[in-house]
């Protein structure tokens, strides 16, 4: 049996198993229902959103076509803001840059980042003897469970509270009840100490404004504020596709992102342009006042440039990672994140084709029903079925 047959058989078995998992079914069903209600409420409360999404599409179109210039501009301005900017061609380059900044045996607190998942960054840093903590609650649960995210925004969508209590009781070595508030409070106490003792904070980014070098990070828990504000060093890892020309445009893209991620307004929007500084003593600018003294931004390619250069697939880079499409995908509704690895469901199969290669994405590519409901949901109207068809044709071509 060929490797592909084995892989497909294994993948199918896994999908089938997931489809029989009652915890998963219940959790996902609840999540879909509340997603649909929340997003509908958010849209009716902020009816300008769909027009704003249209603007965001135009901004993304422009940004992809001019990405090289935007990257250059952003890197320059980040340097002039007393940060340091890097470009990483692929996974290896990105990991090496982070490793070099971090060093060994450090404590690292980390915010949620799809790119970090793509790069297996946590594992790479742990191999160097570093202590790395996921601070997003969902990711923290998965870190302890040694599991992987099942939704890009709600990574632990598949873990019910009883199981969280079990995991926490074992980890904290005391009896913790399945009371959600108690569970949250345990993590809060534990991570608080980590934020203050950490040597490095790592975050992703939702949007980057090329003109000001400002990094925009949307969140609800407040963990990103702490990760990026308390440790003496802040490292941002971000995909090239997150660049837009101006700060004003970055805000438009950000608002569309959180609205379709079903928030009227998110708990926090972090905007960071460089290390913490003060001029309060004799107007002499000094870095590292209360926040980080060092600020690094690593722009990562890892297949994105190839996507950008191919007009058939460029639109996949418009993805804001709002996760809306997944809630509407009939296969995802049954299997959750088992339909994919890092990047999930239909759009995930397109991304996987570029960051890992089309052969690796084959089982996912054949999973898509091409029903097209994701396109209805997508604020960027990304035509996933069309791209999936084309990628299948690449698999079939001699």
């Amino acid at each position, binding site marked *: *049996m*060929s490797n*592909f*047959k084995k892989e*497909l*058989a*294994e993948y*199918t*078995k896994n*999908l*089938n198993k997931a*489809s029989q998992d009652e915890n998963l079914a219940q959790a996902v069903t609840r999540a879909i229902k509340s997603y649909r209600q929340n997003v509908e409420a958010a849209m009716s409360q902020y009816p300008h959103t769909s027009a704003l999404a249209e603007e965001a599409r135009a901004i993304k179109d422009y940004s992809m076509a001019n990405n090289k210039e935007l990257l250059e501009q952003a890197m320059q301005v980040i340097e002039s803001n007393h940060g340091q900017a890097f470009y990483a061609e692929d996974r290896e380059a990105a990991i090496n840059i982070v490793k070099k900044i971090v060093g060994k045996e450090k404590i690292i607190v980390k915010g949620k980042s799809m790119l970090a998942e793509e790069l297996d960054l946590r594992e790479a840093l742990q191999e160097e003897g570093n202590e790395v903590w996921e601070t997003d609650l969902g990711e923290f649960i998965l870190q302890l469970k040694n599991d992987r995210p099942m939704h890009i925004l709600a990574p632990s969508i598949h873990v019910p509270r009883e199981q969280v209590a079990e995991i926490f009781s074992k980890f904290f070595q005391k009896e913790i009840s399945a009371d959600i508030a108690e569970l949250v409070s345990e993590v809060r106490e534990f991570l608080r100490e980590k934020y203050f003792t950490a040597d490095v904070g790592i975050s992703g980014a939702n949007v980057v404004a090329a003109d000001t070098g400002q990094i925009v990070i949307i969140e609800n828990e407040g963990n990103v504020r702490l990760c990026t504000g308390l440790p003496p060093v802040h490292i941002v890892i971000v995909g090239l596709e997150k660049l837009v020309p101006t700060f004003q445009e970055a805000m438009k893209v950000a608002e569309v992102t959180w609205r379709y991620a079903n928030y009227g307004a998110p708990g926090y929007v972090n905007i960071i342009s460089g290390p913490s500084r003060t001029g309060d003593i004799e107007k002499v600018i000094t870095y590292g006042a209360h926040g980080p003294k060092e600020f690094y931004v690593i722009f990562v390619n890892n297949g994105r440039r190839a996507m950008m250069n191919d007009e058939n697939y460029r639109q996949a880079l418009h993805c804001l990672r709002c996760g809306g499409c997944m809630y*509407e995908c*009939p*296969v995802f*509704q*049954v*299997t959750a994140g088992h339909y994919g690895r890092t990047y999930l469901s239909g759009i995930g199969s397109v991304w996987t084709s570029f960051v890992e290669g*089309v*052969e690796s994405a*084959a089982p996912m590519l*054949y*999973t898509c*029903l*091409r*029903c*097209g*409901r994701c*396109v*209805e949901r997508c604020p960027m109207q990304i035509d996933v079925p069309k791209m999936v*068809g*084309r*990628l*299948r*044709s*690449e*698999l*079939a*071509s*001699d």
Partner: protein
Amino acid sequence: MTTNKQIPSVLKLIRSNIIKYGNPLALNPRQNSSWVKDLDLPTKGEILFYTGGEYQLLPYLEPLLKTMTYIDPAGRAFSLLMQARKLVNIFGVAPEKIFAGMLAKDKERYNAINYKAAYILKKLGYDLCYDAQGEIYSGALLYELGFWQDLKSYAVRVAQAIRKTQAKTVVCLSPHAAEMFKHVYPQFEEFPELEVKTFVELVWEKRDKLSPIPTDSPVVIHDSCRLARDLGISKEIRDILDSVGVSYIEPIRNKEWTTCCGGPGKMLFPEISKIIAERRVNELTDTGASKALLACPYCLSSLEGGLKQDKPMVMEDLVEFIYRGVN
């Protein structure tokens, strides 16, 4: 880019059947056109009635799936892949052999949908032609599964088949075929210029001629993905029901937001496909309706398969339903 190595065997099988036999399941053309009976349709004319042999496939799908899924219950996923090669051989000779489990009444029912559709359109005043010998499958699966290289030569065959009939308009029973004629084939050079219509649209244009259809309770509509999203046809179905005096209910997701029946996943992921179908059936039964209307052969087959044993609901093709109003 690598080659066929990354293509699941079952999809290769479907591909070779389409290319070799002009039909995904290698059914013979004579059998595909047996529905036509006394309708007396000329082989040439302005409006071509196009079945693409798709409703004719349906009775074979479920038994095929059962064969493929349950030959080796100890390792379903493996058997699905391993058995495909054997099926090629069986298919080439007599595909019917493996369909011992097929129900005669299903075959009769699905075949009759072609007859009823043509009958309705004739009654509404459309002069149809139909080429029993020359009609071949639309090639939709070649397109959807990514066999785009094959599609180039297949398009030529489809074009020839259409040209032979001298038709200016093609009326498709399957939305998948309509998508091919409307959105895919026009991209190919030398494909004949055609007006493409679905059965639903032609009925909609002359809906005033339909007689009222007495019903006891409202029906629920299931929109097909292709029809509602790719072809933008959903209001037409409602208009038709209004004009025959039938009240209808919408499920939680419908029109451009409709939920897929799971059909496209059947060949590779039959178990997931079935769960998706069952969930859609739940959305339909949640409305309280006891009958669902739909207008796509694959939705019909999938949702029939998604019904539980006690059959809480009747799945009916719009063709079958409207037939009552013209007879």
